[in-house]
């Protein structure tokens, strides 16, 4: 028995090896493609789960459209500046002695209120108010009831 004789490959074995290598190549390509697809899918899921937080320069509606996308963190035109105090501080006003009613109607009807600021005849309905030249829907400013500011 000659153990050092040149090894002659069986053609069948060679074909089998080549076929296996091709299969491995295919499998590798599928694995790479699958990994890329899964990465994309996971990225999309994560982006949906944790949206926003995009910090971009503040933009306004008149600014360049390219940079106008903003999240709650990066505010647009109205975000500038702090809360603004009034130009003049409020002043004490005398409590009306001839008027106690609010100018805010609580009923659903559309009617002029502030009854004490005008005579009953002056408390016109909305239709009457729509007549701009009527003087009887007006009252001297000094006698008008204050508008009410309260919780709503």
């Amino acid at each position, binding site marked *: 028995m000659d153990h050092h004789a040149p090894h002659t490959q069986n053609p069948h074995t060679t074909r089998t090896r080549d076929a296996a290598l091709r299969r491995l190549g295919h499998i590798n390509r599928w694995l790479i493609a699958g990994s890329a697809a899964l990465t994309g899918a996971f990225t999309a899921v994560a982006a949906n789960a944790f949206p926003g937080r995009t910090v971009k320069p503040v933009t*306004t509606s008149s600014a360049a459209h390219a940079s106008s996308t903003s*999240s709650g963190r990066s505010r647009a035109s*109205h975000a500038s500046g702090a809360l603004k105090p*009034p130009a003049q501080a409020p002043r004490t006003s005398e409590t009306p002695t001839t008027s106690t009613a609010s100018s805010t109607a609580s009923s659903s009807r559309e009617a002029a209120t502030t009854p004490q600021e005008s005579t009953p005849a002056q408390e016109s309905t909305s239709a009457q108010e729509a007549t701009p*030249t009527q003087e009887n829907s007006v009252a001297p400013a000094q006698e*008008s009831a204050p508008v009410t500011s309260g919780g709503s």
Partner: protein
Amino acid sequence: MPDAALPIRPQLRSGRRHLATACWEAFGTNVVLRVREPARLACARAIVVAELDAIDRACSRFREDSDLSRVNAAAGARAVRVAPLLTEALEVALRASELTGGAVDPTIGAALVLAGYDRDWRLLEPAAVDAVARAPGKKMAAVRARLRSGWETIDLDVARATVRIPRGIALDLGATAKAWAADRAAAAAQAACDCGVLVGIGGDIATAGDAPDGGWRIHVTDDHRAGAGAPGQTISIAAGGLATSSTLTRRWRRGAATMHHIIDPATGAPTLGSWRTVSVAAADCTDANIASTAALVRCDAAAAVWLEHCGLPARLVDQRGAVRRIGEWPAPAGTSAVTAAVESGPVWADTA
């Protein structure tokens, strides 16, 4: 409306001593319009009605056809194209969130629904009278809204006019839209009618143009429906806006608990601070309302410190009815003008 259709009586024009007022309902509350030129009331009213209607169609949480409802319905899905009015309203709301550190947050819609505020509040079961009289903090059941929320999760594209919010979020612009609408309506009416205008929506008051002699007179109190005869203080403003927020109004029952509409975004439940009513004057009604709402949400002394830091004149009323004035808020007639001093106010809460 052109001025030609509204003849101005010379004596009114020159005298500037007359006011005219109209009232109606919108946004589920009262609207007050007051103008310096009575002849222009109809013009101003038409402008204000149109403005409020447009804002309601864009920003109402209770209208299925509003842009805001479409955004809420698409939460977690696509970006929704909306009217420019809603993008502007959202900008205002997000600015409020930023300036208040999240104390005012437009993403509390889900918490409000969880608290039972899922329709026009007038359709909710009203809170019992005694629930108003007692200290709210002791009776209030906290609604723990285990919801992911936060104003920073809103994706607003101003240029494309699209809004996208994550799943679980619902927007509610109740904290800012009313005051912003008052500012817009007052400015629009003043521009169209060329006269001094005051617009009040549910107690949030905006002015534009020249004020009457002595300023616009305003009575601040717990409930804007109570009228000028209710306990409170009458002041006048020459310009800008004034807003009052209160936990004593817009209350309803949910089971055995009494709820109100001022939600603390940190807890998702109605706020339980020591202040019951806060009035603030500012350069416009929007800023005033942002400050008054945030002060109710912020805890106790922090609210007063923050308001002082902002330089905003304010009047805070605690649960017992004690009044504290901040900054340049005037003292009531006949009292000393001690700034930021605690004064013993009338305890009207227990008798309200």
